[in-house]
């Protein structure tokens, strides 16, 4: 059966993995989560991933809730409060992979990633590393694997 371009595009869109950062406003971890997300959805895997306003989900927007319920999600949280993960789960979505920046930073001791306002050169490198991990996890989720643990 032939599939129209429109149907193929819809299928690809529906197959996208949602990458949802906390964007925590207080510390660099929140900015790292946000910029890592943009690395993934804008650069590393623009056709395979997308992002969603977490605030919209917090609001209970029907379209946003539907999005997280019908797509596999990766939450990138700055800290252990895990606001992105919790809000996706509270909306009825399934978090295929939850990443915490604060934990990831243990691999970069001694580096100064910046502040909640701006990343340093080190910070951008860390954001890119986190993004690579997320892109790989997204690929695993799309292939039906659980992803790396």
């Amino acid at each position: 059966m032939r599939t129209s371009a429109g149907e193929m595009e819809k299928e690809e869109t529906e197959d996208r993995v949602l990458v949802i950062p906390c964007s925590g406003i207080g510390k660099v971890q929140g900015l790292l989560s946000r910029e890592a997300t943009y690395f993934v959805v804008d650069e590393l895997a623009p056709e395979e991933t997308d992002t969603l306003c977490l605030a919209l989900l917090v609001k209970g927007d029907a379209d946003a809730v539907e999005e997280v319920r019908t797509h596999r999600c990766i939450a990138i949280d700055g800290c252990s409060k895990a606001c992105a993960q919790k809000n996706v789960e509270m909306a009825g979505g399934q978090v295929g992979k939850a990443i915490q920046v604060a934990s990831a930073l243990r691999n970069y001791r001694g580096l100064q990633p910046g502040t909640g306002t701006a990343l340093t050169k080190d910070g951008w490198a860390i954001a890119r590393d986190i993004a690579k991990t997320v892109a790989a996890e997204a690929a695993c989720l799309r292939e039906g694997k659980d992803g790396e643990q």
Partner: protein
Amino acid sequence: MSDGESSTATKIGIISCSGEEIPEGTVSRLATRRVLETLRPGNTVTLCLPLFLAGNEGERNFARTHPTITIDGCDKQCARWGTEKHGGSVSRALVVSDILATGVADCSRSSRSRGPADEAAVAAVAERIAAGVDALIGEGAKPQMEPDPAADGAACACMKPADTGSICLRGEEVEIPALPVVFAQCASRGLPADATGAPLLLETAKVFHYIAPEDEADYQAALVEAYRLFLGG
């Protein structure tokens, strides 16, 4: 306490939507940061919006214990909605797309691509927030309820620095962020204040404080001594 003293003590809460999908969300986040850091650092506090749902009662009380300005990227006004749902009334509600109109057309979502248009947008919105802060302080805005001193804190968990502890390193006092929490966790796990517990103390302290490899031995000894005192030894 006089009204003047009271209004001086009142901090204005600023809650940004930080919407990830649109450049206006980035502008709202950066403008809020600018007000907190540069324009009105002594008069403002913030809270991550998602914490309203994911956080504890103290965090949900944030808007009740602070006169609040919400700053939203678009007319969906998620920050205003969330604040009103969990915190009560909002003192001012600003919307980036209303403030900037078409001025956001050349702005970017990621700070990586930040240019003059982004800077101009952030500056304009930050000034509007700061003006709102000034107006509320001028009006003598009061919180709907006083903060509970026994609560876990209605201030932003991110903005609240971890308690700092100190150790005596080579005769000098060195402060280490979150040291009391580190010690409390180690104590709860029964970690001994001796050479067997020293490596874990060092590794945990290094999460919060840079320690050069050549200083590790001295830090380890100092941490064990401070931990022993923490345990009451």
